[in-house]
Structures are given as structure tokens and as C-alpha cells.
């Protein structure tokens, strides 16, 4: 039976990874406003993705304003591709 990556299978996390594959870097504000999530909810999702090694988090300052940026890792890209392949397999059953 096909294994589904449970980290990616959560719809919000899948959407986050899809956004991250489109560009190189996105910041916290962009994800919050685009996904319509609360800050706490997004933080939890990003934490899970980071622990899985799918995203890289970079914290810094833009002048005096704190800035958190995310980028997808190679592991994340590979996992996403594998996830879609697995999902396609399930859908074709």
C-alpha cells in the first residue's frame, strides 16, 4: 500500500509547500495574509515543517522590525513530489 507523508498531507501544510515551490523566499506576513491563518496556527505548521526538514527558517531584522523568512529545502521538494505521486496512485485506485 502507498505511504502518505502525514506532515504534507495536512491541507494547510500542503498549501504552504506549494507556495514555497513557486518562489525562493517568503516571509511570515505573506503566509499569514495569503493563507488566512492566525499567527499561532501558522507558527505551529511551520514548526512541523521545519522539524521534518522540509523548510528552512531564517530570522533577522529589517531595520528594527523582526523578520522571519522561509524557504523550501531540497528534502521538502523531494517529499512534495513523492507525496503527489503517492496521492495520484491513491486517486487512480
Amino acid at each position: 500500500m502507498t505511504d502518505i507523508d502525514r506532515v504534507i498531507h495536512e491541507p494547510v501544510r500542503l498549501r504552504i509547500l506549494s507556495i514555497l515551490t513557486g518562489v525562493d523566499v517568503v516571509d511570515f506576513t505573506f503566509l499569514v495574509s495569503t493563507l488566512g491563518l492566525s499567527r499561532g496556527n501558522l507558527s505551529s505548521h511551520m514548526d512541523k515543517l521545519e522539524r521534518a526538514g522540509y523548510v528552512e527558517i531564517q530570522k533577522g531584522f529589517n531595520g528594527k522590525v523582526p523578520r522571519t523568512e522561509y524557504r523550501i529545502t531540497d528534502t521538502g521538494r523531494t517529499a512534495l513530489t513523492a507525496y503527489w505521486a503517492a496521492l495520484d496512485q491513491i486517486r487512480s485506485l
Partner: protein
Amino acid sequence: MNKVQNQPEDPQEISRWTRAYAQNRSLPVVVFLLIFLTINVVIGGASLLAGTAYRSGNVFLFWVAIAALVPAFGAIVFFSVPRWARKFQTWLIGRLYAKEGNVAFSLQSRHATAWGVILVVCFGACVAASVILGFFFDIPSKYMQPISALYVVPFLVGLWLLMRPMTGWAALLWPLLYALHAILIVAGAPILFTGPWEVLNMVIPIAGYGLLASLAGHLYSRVALRHLRQLAQAGANHTDPLEEARSS
């Protein structure tokens, strides 16, 4: 819980619209072009006024015109220093997209930077060559824009190619309109300004079409963002991972 039904039909659409949005965030270019136009209008207008006032002996008006020139030249100095200009650009992007957040592509590779330097040097050499050409040959002013199109259009296209994937297709409107303008002039279309408005023959293709292309890009970025938000928020089961963890 089966979440397969909640997954977007085509996840690549989310990537595609994110990319389209990021590539067309051209509002800072609009602001920069407006600043550039304002500086030029102030310098042109104040210089004209200063000259007229000086010849007519109006000392007060002369100094008013000089006072208007000071901030304009100050602005030129400010934007000529790369570090200050970069700082301003960062500040501007932060202000303009404060609510939307930041989304970007990585900085260019060294390879692209080297080509960028070559492109700028070639462009500078062409500008110098056209000025020298103007000294030695009596070129009618109506052909200034078509002659400049020979190097401005390849420069803008080259810049677009080097800046990819940072810039979208809308940016190509600029060289396209510039080339079209040149072709129409050569073909004899009545689109030439004369007399005191002659300067517009260059200002419109340079700044006007640039502004138009940037505005088109900006409008497209709005469309892309709307599509992206619809896709990113539609049907999503926004479960709180903390709740999820607790229940499992």
C-alpha cells in the same frame, strides 16, 4: 480523517500564481519612475525659471528657483549612492507591501551580475556614441528616439532576461512599446511633439512606457494575488496542529 478531498485539484496552480504575483510586484518601480520624473520636471522647470528671472533682473524669483533646484540635486546625489538607494528601496518595498508581506527570488548569481555589468557598459557606450554622432552629423531631432531604440530596446530586453525569474512578462511591454514608437516615427506617424514639448518625444518612451509597463505588472500582481488567496484558502481544513496533536 480523509483529507484527500480537501487537497487542491492542481497544486501547481498555487505555485504558478505565487510566482506570477512575485514577478509582478512592480509598485516600487512605479514610485521610482514617478520620483525620477518629478526630479526631472523640477530641474527643468526651475532651470528655465532661474534663467528667465536672471535675465529680467527678478532676484527674488531667481533665488526661489535656485532653492527649488537644491532638493532636486540633493535627490540625484541620494539616488546615485548605491547604499542609500538600496536602503530606500528596502524601506519602500517594506512600506508598500507591509500588509501583504515579502515574497522574493534569490539574488542573482555571479554569472548574471557579470553579464549585467557588460550590459550596462555596452549601453553606456551606445549612449556616448549616439551623443558623439549628434555632434558630427546633423541628425534630425525626430530620429533621436528611433536611433536610441537601437540600443535601448536590446538593453531592456537583456535586462529582463538577466533579471528572470524576478521579473514577469509585463516588463517586456516597455521595450515593446519603445520599439513600436520608433517604428511609427520612422513610418511617418503623427506622434511627434514640437516646440517646447519636444522633450516629450524622449520622456514618453523612456518614462511613460516604463510607467505603463510597471502599472500593467502591478495590476497583474493584484489579479495573481486574488487567485492565489482563493486557491490557498478555498476548502482548506484549517485544523490547529496543537488540537490535532492533543486528539491523537
